[in-house]
């Protein structure tokens, strides 16, 4: 650079050219850096989503051996009418799950962030440990634990604390509880990130100004942690709505979620267009709900923290 600089005065024709190419490169570099990530998203997100949308507008069936693209919008209208119960149920379940997970995770992460001390990371790791075992296997373990005559209920029944016909499995409660457990880490991590960032001296300052512990929490900690709550809500609510494992393992008649319907359409009915239409509907519904939510409650900061945690 230095030599280039001295050259500029004597031979003006050459340096501007070099200078421009250097500036060009500088402007181009960020795009090059984006290329791996962007390419990945293009190939594994944009392309499949486009194909999904195309598939959802096809007609035909598995027996005739091919599906043709015919702008079959009926796929959408029919599915919305036919499966509104399951759509509504999925949203209901996942709202309950998200709220329950927030209520469980907030005190837990609060404690870790404020009182964890040097054990912070170890305790946080404990939250992550369940991730090491397949989600499906863990859900199946629930089934063994909560069996009508399983480890937990069998002793309680034999000493008469529970009536003989008491059961948890195959009820909506089992599905919601199973999902709450499955998605708890998704709630806990963004909450932890937000709580951990809070400057603890602010709490001390609040106390110096004669606030009670509760007031300090309400006026200092809680508002500062809201971005985390926002991110946790989204990260839990969206995948929970599409969940199908819990309903199919822990549920019974009348707990079918929209994810189960999509799975059934894909695998058993082999009706790819209708399955795709349902997926697109679910995706759009989630986008709309999430953006309304972001409009009402979100801030730039919370979007950032959602990005960080996600």
């Amino acid at each position: 650079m230095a030599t280039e600089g001295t050259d500029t005065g004597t031979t003006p024709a050459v340096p501007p050219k070099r200078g421009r190419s250097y500036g060009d490169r500088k402007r181009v570099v960020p795009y090059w850096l984006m290329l791996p990530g962007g390419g990945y998203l293009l190939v594994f997100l944009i392309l499949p989503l486009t194909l999904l949308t195309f598939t959802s507008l096809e007609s035909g069936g598995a027996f005739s051996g091919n599906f043709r693209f015919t702008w079959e919008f009926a796929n959408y209208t029919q599915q919305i009418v036919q499966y509104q119960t399951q759509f509504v149920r999925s949203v209901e379940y996942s709202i309950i799950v998200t709220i329950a997970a927030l209520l469980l995770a907030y005190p837990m992460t609060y404690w870790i962030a404020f009182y964890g001390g040097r054990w912070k990371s170890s305790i946080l790791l404990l939250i992550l440990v369940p991730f090491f075992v397949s989600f499906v296997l863990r859900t199946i373990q629930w089934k063994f634990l909560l069996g009508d005559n399983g480890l937990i209920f069998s002793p309680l029944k034999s000493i008469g604390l529970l009536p003989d016909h008491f059961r948890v499995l195959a009820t909506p409660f089992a599905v919601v509880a199973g999902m709450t457990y499955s998605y708890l880490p998704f709630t806990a991590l963004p909450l932890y990130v937000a709580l951990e960032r809070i400057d603890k001296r602010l709490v001390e300052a609040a106390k110096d100004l004669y606030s009670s512990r509760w007031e300090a929490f309400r006026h200092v900690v809680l508002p500062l942690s809201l971005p985390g709550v926002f991110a946790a809500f989204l990260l839990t609510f969206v995948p929970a709505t599409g969940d199908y494992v819990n309903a199919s393992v822990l549920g019974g008649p009348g707990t079918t979620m929209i994810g189960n319907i999509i799975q059934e359409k894909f695998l058993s009915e082999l009706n790819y267009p209708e399955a795709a239409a349902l997926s697109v509907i679910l995706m759009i519904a989630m986008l709309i709900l999430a953006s309304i939510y972001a409009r009402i409650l979100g801030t730039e900061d919370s979007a950032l923290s959602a990005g960080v945690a996600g």
Partner: protein
Amino acid sequence: MSDDRLIAPGAMQEILRKRLTRRGLLKGAGAGVAGFSLAAFLAACGSDSGGGNVNPKDVFSGEAGDTVQFANWPLYLDQAKDKDGNVYYPSLKQFKDATGITVNYEATIQSNEEFYGKIQPQLAAGDSTGWDIIVITNGRQFTILTQNQWVYPLDTSKRPNFDANAADYAVSPAYDPGNKYSMAWQSGITGIGVNTKLVNGEVTKMDDLANPDKVGKSSVGMLTGDMPDWVMVNLGIDPKTSGPDEWKEAAAWLMKQRDSGTVRQYYDQGYINDLTGGNLTATMAWSGDVLYNQLWAGYDNLEFVFPDGGALLWIDNMLIPVGAKNPVGALEVMDWYYDPKIATEVTEWVLYNSPVKGVQDLIIKDADKAQAQGYKGYANKLYETAHNEFLFPTQAYLARTSFGRQLENDDEASQWDNIFLPISQG
């Protein structure tokens, strides 16, 4: 029956046989399903279909290749351990000794739906699936594979063992006249599995599954895929000639049952764990699942009931997908398993119904032999196996079974789905 298997009989069987249910725990698990969907979309773009009109003589001419790729269900082939403790498949080893062909056997099929989902994109695009033999149950996926000619028609002149030994019900079944495309691997019956300790009185017929006094509330399992045909059979309707009116009749019974409050869950699979675990009092069940637990795993409170109204018979069929590299070798393998001696080795291990004649007598012989060698427990289990009326169903039972309605086209399939799916999905 080779002698090295009798050296370590009962104990080894127990160790090797870590069976849950034939149809696996949960189809595909999450990841498999998610991974598959992209393939399905890609597949949906292609509209190329299958082999066209293939002349079997062309496909099956020439010499067999060195290896055969065989995809089957878990725990569906006899296993043993060699001296170093490595698990191998005795009947395939014997095949190699006899023909020089190596069979790469993989127990990779968890469900018809999932496996079909995996191979459909390749078949639709005209690519090879990589498999020379696949095993698919009679039903929707089977029909689509044959209708689209995604499987080779077999050279019927090259299966002497099959011609000589195939059991009557496996010869020219309604879903594949003349066994043009398929040969049975194993088969079974869909009836009722009962936990005799948990029911009030005796469960003998379908209506008992809708009677809360007998089976209790929320404690009956129903098999989503099998139940439409199964209910029709038990209502006295012949599924084969049934139409939408009869389907609605069956759906009405299922709705009535659902309203009675007895149903605990509509299963794709996994019901057998709930039966052995005591969560179910009675359930629609596949014969082999119940019989294995009852005869070999010590659940003497379980019982398999052939309902008064009748039952479903299903067959898992060997097929050769289009694009197979070694169809000649594949057909040799398929015919190999119609040698009664080989079929007996398989049956003693997998405990499903053999489509091969003479297996029952050979099991009794093996039992005698084990008895003579002093393996009394093992011998008893073999005797019980050989004399089980559901593993070797009598003509009287078989006459009361049906293969179910074979759906022929997309219109029928969507009518069927619209009638039956609201029951399990409500």
